[in-house]
């Protein structure tokens, strides 16, 4: 939720002495720029254009990886119109398949809804459901990394925290099966949170007490976490048979609309987490401390805020949110843990937090975008034989453009701030 903003964030004083000296504490903050006092739609411009640009470049790659289109282009000089129309056709088919794969076909949804048949509706809405299912864990990890960003911490350890969260949630899910289902589910979620929180607490303490940089420690702890999961999967408590696959957990998120579509309660938990993080950051004294330490630890300390304690709390909370993603995996798609059950989720979290500009609402939107791209990408591959790797390229391009807002602004000739030039040169003027 954006803060109440000023009607105009510009300076009333074009030669204000030192606007440019408000150096962000880190390059991360610069890339993120969730500026206080920025209107919500201003924050949206760069990510939206980044997505559009990535899709355009993705289209070019699609054309040049399609034999039919390449052949048309080889005869470009004689039949330029053919080359263009073939390209257009290839791209539009691919992207249409992507869209339908991610959101279903509007015609089919309409038919199903008007027929009133439950099964037809379910099958028409299946793609959307899949998108939501894919987006759910992304929301947790995105929130995890975003929370760190806002407090000036770069939590690269989401991957490890997801793993430990899943491991501890699994311990609860396997060991406490005597509990009634709903209580077991809640216990698993709490256990996942606590596991992830522990894995965030460690680098938090290391940073607060010894100054060890969280980027280094969290990367290292990722390896430790993955190895720990492998080890525990070989113990009698976890292992199912000879395979390194755990016994299934005793409870799972109930499906929201019957078993035909897989969308489950996890999305509600994820959205509640997003709301909770937004509320925490913007409406509470705790969040104020987080943001203060993130924006200027020196001033925060001088104002009586303890940056060390804040670091530990933020890292623990951030880890806990990643842990929820681990619990989510266990309580939804596959009930068992297996090596790499959360592979890559932590790193997706970084991408999503960047794309969402460290803002919980942005994180939710970015998660749905990535979920849609992945879900739609699968059917794009099936329907048009466009390789799903294109999706990875598009995702990567989105991140590149979001991380380099100057590039996007230059591309679309958006001025950074209307009096930006003046402010730069006015620095230090009388």
């Amino acid at each position, binding site marked *: 939720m954006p*803060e*109440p*903003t*000023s*009607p*105009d*964030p*510009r*300076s*009333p*004083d*074009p*030669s*204000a*002495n*030192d*606007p440019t*000296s*408000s150096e*962000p504490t880190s390059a991360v903050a610069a890339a993120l720029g969730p*500026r*206080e*006092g920025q209107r919500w739609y201003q924050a949206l411009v760069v990510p939206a254009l980044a997505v559009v640009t990535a899709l355009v470049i993705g289209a070019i790659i699609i054309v040049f990886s399609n034999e039919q289109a390449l052949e048309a282009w080889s005869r470009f000089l004689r039949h330029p119109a053919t080359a263009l129309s073939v390209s257009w056709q290839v791209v539009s088919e691919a992207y249409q398949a992507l869209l339908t794969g991610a959101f279903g076909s509007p015609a089919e949804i309409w038919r199903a809804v008007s027929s009133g048949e439950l099964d037809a509706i379910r099958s028409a809405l299946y793609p959307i459901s899949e998108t939501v299912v894919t987006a759910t864990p992304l929301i947790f990890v995105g929130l995890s990394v975003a929370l760190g960003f806002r407090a000036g911490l770069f939590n690269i350890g989401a991957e490890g925290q997801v793993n430990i969260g899943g491991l501890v949630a699994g311990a609860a899910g396997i060991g406490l099966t005597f509990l009634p289902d709903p209580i077991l589910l809640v216990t698993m979620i709490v256990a996942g949170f606590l596991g992830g929180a522990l894995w965030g607490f460690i680098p938090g303490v290391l940073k607060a007490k010894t100054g060890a940089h969280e980027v280094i420690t969290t990367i290292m702890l990722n390896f430790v976490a993955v190895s720990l999961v492998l080890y525990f999967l070989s113990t009698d408590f976890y292992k199912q048979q000879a395979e390194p696959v755990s016994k299934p957990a005793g409870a799972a998120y109930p499906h929201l609309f019957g078993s035909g579509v897989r969308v489950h309660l996890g999305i509600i938990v994820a959205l509640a987490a997003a709301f909770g993080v937004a509320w925490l950051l913007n*409406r*509470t*004294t*705790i969040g*104020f*401390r987080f*943001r*203060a330490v993130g*924006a*200027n630890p*020196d*001033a*925060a*300390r*001088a*104002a*009586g*805020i*303890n940056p060390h304690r804040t670091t530990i709390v933020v890292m623990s909370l951030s880890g806990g949110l990643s842990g929820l993603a681990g619990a989510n995996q266990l309580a939804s798609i596959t009930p068992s843990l297996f090596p790499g059950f959360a592979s890559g989720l932590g790193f997706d979290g970084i991408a999503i937090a960047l794309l969402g500009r460290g803002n919980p609402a942005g994180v939710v939107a970015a998660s749905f975008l990535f979920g849609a791209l992945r879900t739609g990408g699968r059917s794009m591959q099936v329907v048009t034989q466009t390789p799903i790797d294109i999706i990875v390229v598009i995702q990567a391009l989105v991140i590149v453009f979001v991380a380099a807002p100057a590039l996007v602004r230059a591309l679309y000739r958006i001025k950074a701030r*209307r*009096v930006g*030039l*003046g402010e730069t*040169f*006015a*620095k*230090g*003027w*009388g």
Partner: protein
Amino acid sequence: MRLELRGITKRFPGVLANDHVDLTVEEGEIHALLGENGAGKTTLMNILYGLYGADEGELLIDGGPAHFASPGDAIAAGLGMVHQHFMLVPVFTVTENIMLGIESTRRFGLLDRAAAARRVAEISHRHGLDVPVDAVVEDLPVGVQQRVEIVKALYREAEVLILDEPTAVLTPQETEELFAVMRSLKAEGTSIVFITHKLKEVLAIADRITVMNRGRVVGSTTPAETNEEELASMMVGRAVKLVVEKTPAERGEPVLEIRDLVVRDDRGHVAVDGVSLDVHAGEIVCIAGVQGNGQTELVEAVTALRPAAAGSIRLLGDELASATPRSVLRSGVGHVPEDRQRDGLIVDFSVADNLVLNTFDQPPFARGVVRDAKEVREAAEERAEAFDVRTWTVEQPASTLSGGNQQKVIVAREFSRPIRFLIASQPTRGLDVGSIEYIHRRIIEQRDEGTAVLIVSVELDEVMALADRIAVMYRGRIVDILPAASAVRERLGLLMAGAGTTAASGGSEGSVGGAAGA
């Protein structure tokens, strides 16, 4: 070269930055452009230098119209500008910096450093601008770097030199040297536009003075016709007292008692070396001294931001040993930090949030952990009003305020809490006359309400204006404590330079009038 600006008007959305400004700089004159921060000097010079286009008005050079679309045009026409923040490549030599962009070359485009160095030497010799041609710029003191900038402009055959707050970074000796150079340039026919807000300097060096206020030229005069008070009033737009009047202090109980304090700096060196000092309710004690003599560490120790290595601090009756920055603030201490942008404000946060930066978690600004945005905004609006913080709304980021207004935000925040001890470092650094007067007045009001005040300042003017007692700090020790009434500038200057070290017994409290009873 004669430079004339006629009717220059520049609008920014919502602001009239320059309102029909006329300015004429005659050949061979030093023309001071005087004004507070935000008066429009910046904008005017940016227009002159081709960085902005004017909305209205024209520029005449030697009577003929001129138009600069970029700084390149301005330089070609004979303008040179020395920015406050130098535009030099630190790892290049002086000659390389000066020739950068208009390099002399030999065959095959090889740089002819020797030829350039000869010209640099010739220019610097002619104007008494001594620069070591082969030295690397980053090794040079700021005063010399500034000379390199001036030579750079002259190398490009500047006939009009714009100096932006040139004395802000200089020591008094360097300022004198700069003035000598300016006079020499003037004698050769170079015109100089001297931008500043320091009144004494204007009167010392300028031929003509143009004063700006709120985008308009409010007056034009000469040093012979005016004085500091009049210039200050023109600048601010109302009568200004350069020294705020105050009654003799009514000293109460000791509030701060420092005994044999030793504090180490970040590198572990002893920065505060056995300091003892008392500050009583209702008095202002100023610590005078050249920057870097342990004042910063002393303040940090008193506010619990830095641990004491030895000795004791009693603040408001409590030992400070186990205190945290938070408990110190809560016990009734107001702190105006030395570096407002680093320690005083979170510039990305709104003015409102900065106004409650150390009370954000207390009622009425929070109930439990939930903040009350409405209470914060209302209190912020009230405080901004009461302390004359010029802001459109309290929701705009503090980074958009001018330095003076940023400082007022800090003062408003600290003075709005019930405080019994105020510690302020360089409370008016970089501020204009109006803001200085305002903040001084507020500090004296605090004293009159019975607050104990400790000020650290490197500005002797400020020390003389505020102090009831003056403690001079040199190399981590307090070399003398004088009642302000008997303090003489010259003696303070000598003490600050270390001349009194042997006389004052080891730097502990107890010489002239300083026997603040424990």
